[in-house]
């Protein structure tokens, strides 16, 4: 259960009013963006608040505190953090699983592909057909996918990602941490060929 936002962390009546207004506007912006199936970054929210003269902080105050309280005070709001910006979404419009895909999308094709493959392997114990990355919501170009694969093979931190090719020339990726090579190959063949012979 999250704690209500109230005016915790803001000083004085003016600070409280400003903080409440800013939190309200920020929450609306997150929900609006989530309704369009997208995340919004912390910096985008601040830009928006500044543009509308709702800057939530006085000079020298901690912006992280504002976002922490924002998320804690609203049951549906959640933040995702990685190596770059902080990103936010509303679970009224988007599941955590989808938000994570959107988040990895912000981190670039390489990470998007790798994390998707890892997630599929851990949740489903299945390899992933390469062509899903050119479809919505991934929307990578064929070149982006191929370049990412080439980079992966040369990068140690992606050493757990492997590929297998089916008899119908379908390329599938899998995570070696969760799937053995033979099992991945058999599953890829089933998914790409076998299941279509059993309609």
């Amino acid at each position, binding site marked *: 259960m999250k704690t209500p936002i109230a005016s915790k962390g803001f000083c004085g009546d003016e600070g409280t009013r400003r903080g409440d207004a800013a939190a309200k506007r920020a929450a609306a912006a997150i929900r609006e963006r989530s309704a369009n199936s997208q995340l919004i970054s912390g910096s985008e929210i601040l830009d928006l608040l500044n543009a509308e003269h709702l800057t939530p902080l006085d000079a020298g105050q901690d912006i992280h505190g504002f976002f922490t309280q924002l998320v804690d005070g609203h049951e549906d709001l959640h933040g995702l953090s990685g190596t770059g910006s902080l990103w936010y979404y509303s679970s009224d419009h988007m599941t955590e699983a*989808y938000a994570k895909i959107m988040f990895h999308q912000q981190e670039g094709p390489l990470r998007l592909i790798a994390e998707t493959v890892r997630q599929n392997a851990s949740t489903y114990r299945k390899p992933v*057909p390469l062509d899903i990355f050119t*479809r919505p919501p991934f929307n990578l170009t064929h070149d982006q996918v191929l370049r990412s694969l080439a980079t992966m093979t040369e990068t140690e931190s992606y050493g757990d990602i492997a590929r297998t090719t089916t008899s119908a020339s379908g390329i599938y990726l899998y995570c070696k941490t969760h799937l053995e090579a033979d099992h991945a190959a*058999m599953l890829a063949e089933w998914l790409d060929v076998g299941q279509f*012979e059993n309609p």
Partner: protein
Amino acid sequence: MSGYGGWAGKVLRVDLSTGRIWTEDTIERYKEFLGGTGIGYKVMWDEVPPGTKPYDPENRIVFATGPLAGTSAPSSGRTAITTLWPTCWPIPLVASGHMGGHFAAKLKYAGYDAVIIQGKADRPVWLMIADQKVEILDAHEIWGQGIRAATYAISEIMGRDAVVAAIGQAGENLVPMSNVMNDVSHSAGGIGSVMGSKKLKAIGVVGSGSIRIAGKKEDWGKFIKYHLSLLGASNQQVVPSSPQPWAEYYDPTTRWNASRGHRWGAAAHPVDTGICDPHDMNRIAYRSNTAAFFLGDGVWPHTVRGNGCSSCPIRCHTILKVPSVSAKYGIPAVGQNTCGGLKFGRAFFKKFPDGPRGMTELEACMVGMHLADDLGIWCNYGLLQRDFIKLYYDGVIKKKLGAREFASYSWSKYEKGDPAFLFELLPRIAAKEGELGTAMGLGTGYMLERWNLSEEEWGKDKALGYWKMGHGKHHSSEETGQCGLLINLMYNRDSQCHSHSNFTRNGLPLTLQKKLAAELWGAPEAVDGVGDYKPMHWSKARMAKWSLLRKELHDSLSLCNWMGPWVASPLRERGYRGDDSVESMLYRLATGDDKDREGLDAVAERIFLLHRALTIRGMGTREMRIRHDKIPEWVFSDKSGKPPYTKGTSHLDRNDVHLALDLFYEEMGWDKATGAPTDRTYRKFGLGGVADRLAERDLIPT
């Protein structure tokens, strides 16, 4: 007529030998067998003596609906057609085919739960059913025509509201691999030639009545909305194939392929299928594009829309528009079908010039649908095409045909994957023309016999997917382990059961499937991951029994076993649970017969038992375990050479399969040594008379 709702109340009887037409009271004669296959098996048991052949006038063709046909119950458009099966090898036994479309509902509105055809006309005829007016009419003008021409000709006579179930030239010519089809693309395989043997070209139906619902209108409406809320996409797959904002899970291999950016591109005004939130009841029909599932994303621009059966929001038939086929092959640019029918043409080819899922493959589908759905050729669940590929590439066709006949085919076109080859092959199958046309039209068992090929060898080839008795696997051990194996053993054709595979393919992670399985079948061990099979467990036998009973229940109520059961749902707030009482709730509300889930399951078991009894009587032996429930060799082999139950393999262990049979027979109340139901089991399900008749022939286990 009783006070029951659901049923129309009468069964129409037609004797084509005498021209006699009469009716029976459905409730009085058939209520304890519900409808559909229940009525079919009952009629076959009571009226068709053992030793009868499919084309004998004494054989019956039972077109039967169930008490939910013609109501607004979701996916209630099925007609079961039961008869002696002409492709069942080495002796024809009872089996059923199933068609969707609008025939079932229309027959009910005309006042009939079933039409039972017997005898043989002395000239080609068609049957006109217009409410109480039923006539046997001369068909000489449409005999020799394809299904489409026959359908249009009868519709001209009966009006645009008519539903016509017709056979093509294949059925007329007594080609065993033939079907009957209504609404242009909804077929039931295997029985076209039985209609042909009776000289019955078609049945046309118009009906102006309605079906009474016994329950309160508001209760019915509320339950229908509840049932709709549990629906997934085609084949009750409850997880989308791509990430969606509302979805916790996605599985790239499900048939829920709607998504932003996936558009019905050939619609007059292209439609984006969108995110399809499962709570949006008005977008259920957008969830699946069957053609895109089978043929890839290149199909979306050619998609007009989905089409389907009465009262079914899952439109599993895809209407396609492919203008290039008009120019190249002189056929209409628009065609429609689903699954095996959709793939009919492409499945003959090993490869295409532009690779898999390219334009040529799509064109082969269009040509195949155009020809097969007019000539009325059945694919035997794809085994026809797999046989053909093997026979050609193994050199058998060349060996078996005379040089002149072999040269009359354009084999270079075939090898290149040119759809034009289908114009050479399919009409000759329908006409029984030449050695190849004749042999391919026989069905696998009789083709092997004709060409002196070994059934045992056929059963060793895993890719071929031959199962037994002339038919192929249908969701068997390769995808559902021991459960699929047990189900595939039971029938006299491919099993057509989807209760199990619709669960294991529903798209939920295995951990969730196991959780639901424990609730449904008593233990999480009931389901395994594909290629990660585990040894037999009692819960797998229980799941197999449940799957079979749900199939028979669906086939007898007119529900679609391709779309149900509904024991999983896309609803996160329900923990993805569906409801195992959907069928009994619909039945109670529609009919007013106060049977709960267990009560209705007992009826399903009675129906399934009667099928087993018919098989035992037909074969003249109670030794089902060794003579009927036979397993092809490929089930036990894997090219890796690894032991069974090693990850990445799908073969089973022989001793473990023996245990599976023991546990299954025990679950069914059948004798373990013979696999035949015991006297006690027959009597428990109200089939004492059946047990007595079998005992007279020494067909009850001692």
